[in-house]
């Protein structure tokens, strides 16, 4: 096992590490705005721990392969490290560092007692059988050993990992504890299956959070969602649930884009009808009978009040920001608006609900799962949803009021709040020794 601590690079490999550049740019902008204590800036620019493990796993054919796993722990001033584990050939320490730092701001803004972490295994899961993936996961958990733990570092699902992966990690970790402590360690991971300590409503939490932040924004303007039109890029978990809840409040879905194509109907697309269609059409919305195919390159220029990029990053750029018709962009995905695109939108008076606020319902739900396990409780869906309402309203109000008070955009306000919360913890506690 190797443990390192290095400074996050400011300019390294700019052309291919967009996410790292964005995270650092956002951090630096906010740190400058709040005149962040220079010593604390030094702390936050580095990762606390970078763990690399190499571990052997026996394959189905009897061969043994060596795998490399990572866990980056950026900061734990506010509580245990929290963040996903992804299984992908491109996972490496740089990737994990950027995402771990981003988790620190996200958990801080959400007012959770967590820090930020990220990790994974450099692997193409499609090349391994289910039983091999189980052994790889369990051996990775064993290799990480006490570098994770329910009060120290709490992984969650990410790309190519799911509730089953989390169940294997929990089971393996618990099995390595003394018998009397095993069941008290179930909250070593979140995102577990609902029969194994998972949270009811976890599936809809992120999309519900997107819907809530949109609703809160209109309420601040003394408006309702009734009759508002919206477009969604990505009809996966986040896009579907956000659309479901928006429609329930009277808003009208008028255009959708997924990996297969784009559709539009200004008279409205019924969310459940579209969902049922995609379920029966191999996940594709193409040829949905109640809408017309639209130009994929002009999707963000579709006439609407609300634009929800809920698929992937880098979608609203200098090339298309001028065409956006919506007055509100709600970032359901991570990093869908780049720096140039954001500048244009702001100049045009378009409000952006930033990703670290807009899609934070998922990490809040993870916190609820952790609390539920830690307290030995089982929460019903009708308890979970009002708790999400309360938590997200608190976050939204803080960002809204800070942006008004300091005359800054929502994203900068969100980062300022997140960083100030961590700065406060360091100032109150001091630095050991």
């Amino acid at each position, binding site marked *: 096992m190797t443990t390192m601590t290095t400074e996050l690079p400011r300019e390294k490999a700019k052309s291919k590490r*967009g996410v790292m550049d964005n995270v650092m740019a956002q951090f630096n902008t906010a740190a400058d705005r709040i005149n962040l204590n220079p010593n604390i800036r030094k702390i936050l620019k580095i990762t606390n721990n970078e763990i690399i493990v190499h571990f052997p796993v026996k394959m189905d054919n009897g061969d043994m392969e060596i795998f490399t796993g990572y866990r980056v722990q950026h900061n734990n001033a506010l509580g245990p490290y929290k963040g996903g584990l992804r299984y992908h050939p491109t996972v490496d320490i740089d990737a994990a560092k950027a995402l771990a730092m981003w988790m620190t701001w996200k958990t801080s803004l959400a007012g959770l007692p967590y820090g930020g972490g990220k990790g994974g295994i450099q692997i193409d899961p499609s090349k391994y059988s289910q039983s091999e993936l189980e052994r790889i996961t369990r051996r990775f958990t064993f290799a990480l050993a006490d570098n994770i733990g329910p009060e120290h570092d709490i992984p969650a699902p990410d790309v190519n990992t799911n509730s089953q992966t989390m169940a294997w990690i929990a089971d393996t970790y618990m099995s390595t504890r003394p018998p009397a402590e095993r069941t008290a360690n179930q909250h070593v991971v979140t995102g577990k299956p609902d029969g194994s300590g998972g949270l009811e409503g976890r599936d809809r939490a992120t999309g519900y959070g997107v819907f809530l932040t949109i609703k809160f924004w209109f309420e601040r303007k003394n408006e309702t969602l009734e009759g508002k039109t919206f477009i969604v890029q990505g009809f996966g978990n986040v896009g579907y649930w956000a659309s479901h809840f928006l429609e329930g409040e009277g808003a009208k879905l008028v255009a959708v884009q997924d990996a297969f194509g784009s559709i539009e109907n200004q008279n409205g697309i019924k969310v459940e009808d579209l969902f049922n269609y995609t379920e029966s059409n191999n996940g594709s919305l193409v040829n949905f009978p109640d809408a017309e195919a639209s130009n994929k390159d002009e999707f963000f220029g579709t006439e609407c009040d609300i634009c929800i990029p809920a698929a992937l*990053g880098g979608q609203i750029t200098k090339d298309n920001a001028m065409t956006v018709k919506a007055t509100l962009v709600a970032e359901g995905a991570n990093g869908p608006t780049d720096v140039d695109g954001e500048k244009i939108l702001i100049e045009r008076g378009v409000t952006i609900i930033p990703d670290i606020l807009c899609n934070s319902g998922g990490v809040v739900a993870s916190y609820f799962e952790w609390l539920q396990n830690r307290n030995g409780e089982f929460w019903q869906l009708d308890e979970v949803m009002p708790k999400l309402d309360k938590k997200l309203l608190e976050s939204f109000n803080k960002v809204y009021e800070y942006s008004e008070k300091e005359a800054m955009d929502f994203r900068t306000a969100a980062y300022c709040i997140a960083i100030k919360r961590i700065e406060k913890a360091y100032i109150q506690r001091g630095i050991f020794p």
Partner: protein
Amino acid sequence: MSQNQFNICPTCSHQSTCVLTKHKNQVWACSEFDEKKTDHSSENRPREQKGTEPKLEIAYT
């Protein structure tokens, strides 16, 4: 340690037809991501060529 392009598109089943982005070299998360479905499990892979030396038992941490 190898340095990789940080990108999930090459292993996505929609890579060749996806309309969401032209920049399929810098996507680090996507709601539409679907792992390519290929059966490469080790049962179907040829076993590694074994040398003639006696097999060593290695203890890894």
